[in-house]
């Protein structure tokens, strides 16, 4: 029944990817409470941690105010915190049996993984909207440039996809919700603190700088800092940041596609 041409294969792949993503988005529409509760934590980081640290003036941020410096970092952080626990829902689907239905379908495993990643990207965008509004209310000088906003959305979607797919890989290894909760906490801390999210990399000891430079979150933060703020500047270059995130996502999707079928064995 499937079209055997290349165009047919591509459109089939897109349909199957969208089938997964759209189902996840429909669930969010049916029950948006999750999105609302997820918005609380980044707001608290900005209003509590951010306000206090802005007064301390102990962190050199290269000219911009600390709140301005922090806002893109908190956006990247909230994307990470939501995405990194994505694997829990995959384990839950396996425990129920919903995952079996995906796995017996003819959809390529990578389409199933990409569909999940895409839906995580949309969750990330909803976080971004909340944080933009909160930052605006706190007089962070946001870039008014529409092109910048589009780029920021791209950074958010890519890093959501990357970290949610990483989470899926972890889920295929640990396989139970209990173990995942523990591991999820352990993973979040180093990814967050060994990055430039809340302080510049130059403040770190040399060995930690190495870790931060190998950490994809640093590139998400760097790119967001350049496109989110009016006076934003990138350390590595926005194109470089995007390339790193895209490459990491491709590699992670490839790994996840191989590992995903282990969940239902």
């Amino acid at each position, binding site marked *: *029944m*499937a079209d055997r041409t290349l165009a047919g294969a591509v459109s*089939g792949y897109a*349909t*199957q990817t*969208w*089938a*997964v993503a*759209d*189902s996840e988005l*429909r*669930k969010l529409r*049916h*029950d948006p409470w999750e999105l609302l509760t997820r918005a609380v934590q980044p707001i608290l980081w900005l209003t509590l941690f951010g306000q206090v640290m802005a007064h301390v003036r102990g962190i050199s941020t290269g000219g911009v105010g600390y709140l301005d410096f922090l806002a893109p970092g908190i956006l990247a952080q909230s994307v990470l915190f939501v995405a990194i626990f994505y694997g829990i829902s995959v384990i839950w689907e396996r*425990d*129920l*049996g*919903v995952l*079996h*239905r*995906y*796995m*017996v*379908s*003819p*959809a390529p495993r990578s389409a199933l993984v990409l569909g999940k990643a895409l839906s995580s990207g949309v969750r990330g965008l909803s976080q971004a909207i909340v944080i933009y509004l909160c930052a605006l209310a706190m007089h962070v000088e946001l870039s008014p440039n529409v092109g910048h906003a589009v780029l920021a959305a791209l950074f958010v979607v890519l890093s959501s996809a990357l970290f949610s797919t990483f989470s899926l890989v972890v889920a295929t290894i640990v396989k139970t919700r209990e173990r995942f909760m523990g591991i999820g906490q352990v993973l979040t801390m180093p990814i967050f603190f060994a990055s430039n999210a809340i302080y510049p990399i130059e403040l770190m000891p040399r060995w930690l700088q190495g870790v931060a430079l190998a950490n994809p979150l640093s590139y998400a933060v760097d790119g967001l800092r350049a496109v989110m703020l009016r006076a934003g500047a990138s350390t590595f270059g926005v194109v470089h940041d995007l390339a790193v995130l895209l490459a990491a996502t491709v590699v992670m999707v490839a790994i996840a596609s191989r590992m995903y*079928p282990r969940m*239902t*064995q």
Partner: protein
Amino acid sequence: MSPDNPAPAAPPSGPDRAVVSVSALTRRFGPLVAVDGATLQVQRGEMFGLIGPNGAGKSTLVKMLTTLLPPSSGSARVAGFDIHTQQAEVRRSIGYVPQLLSADGELTGYENLLLSARLYLLPHGERERRIDQALATMGLQDVRDRLVGTYSGGMIRRLEIAQSALHRPQVIFMDEPTIGLDPTARHAVWGHVRSLRAAYGTSIVLTTHQMEEADTLCDRIGVIHAGHLVAVGTPRELKARVGEGATLDDVFASLTGAALDMRGDYRHVREERRGAREHG
């Protein structure tokens, strides 16, 4: 442990009547041999039952035939395709109703069917028509836009069967399709399974540990015990082997020296009770 109908091995393709052809299929989990050298054929349009207690290897066998689990050794063809080297073709040709809950409770009945229609790449113009027809056949039109989480166990099972049949597969595998359902819901599911076969000539392979289900629904039965397929035949043949007035329970006891009611371990009890709660 040779099954007692040693049909000749089917040719790899061609107009033979076997829709499922299994040859010495084996699956090990560490030292445990969950399925040990299973060999059997299921004919086109046939309703074939695998019976045995929980943990006998029924689900493992079905998982191999549905490409969820790679076999340790042996081979099988489903709809003419090799389960190991032609997984995509096998997947296009089969439907699967897992023992666990496979309909998504956070989506509506319609959305669950839409997901299936898209995953199986039903032509765009065909989707809505098939979905409407499936909902009507299963008596779910009135609840199509309700979240499946609010459905009764019998409604969920009907939806899952509709999903598994939406792309008109040649064979549908059903793992314990009526587990945890009350007698009324169970009989309704039986009726739908029968009409599915009548309408599309679909072959059906189902596992069950209820003798009544196997007896009333299946053309032929494979008895599986501790990983071994110990007998294959029609319910009448199997009962005749034990003696006059024998039930399938007697058949099972005489073949395995065990009562069918000897349920597995804690995990199986837990799964079954959870299933009963979710479906009931």
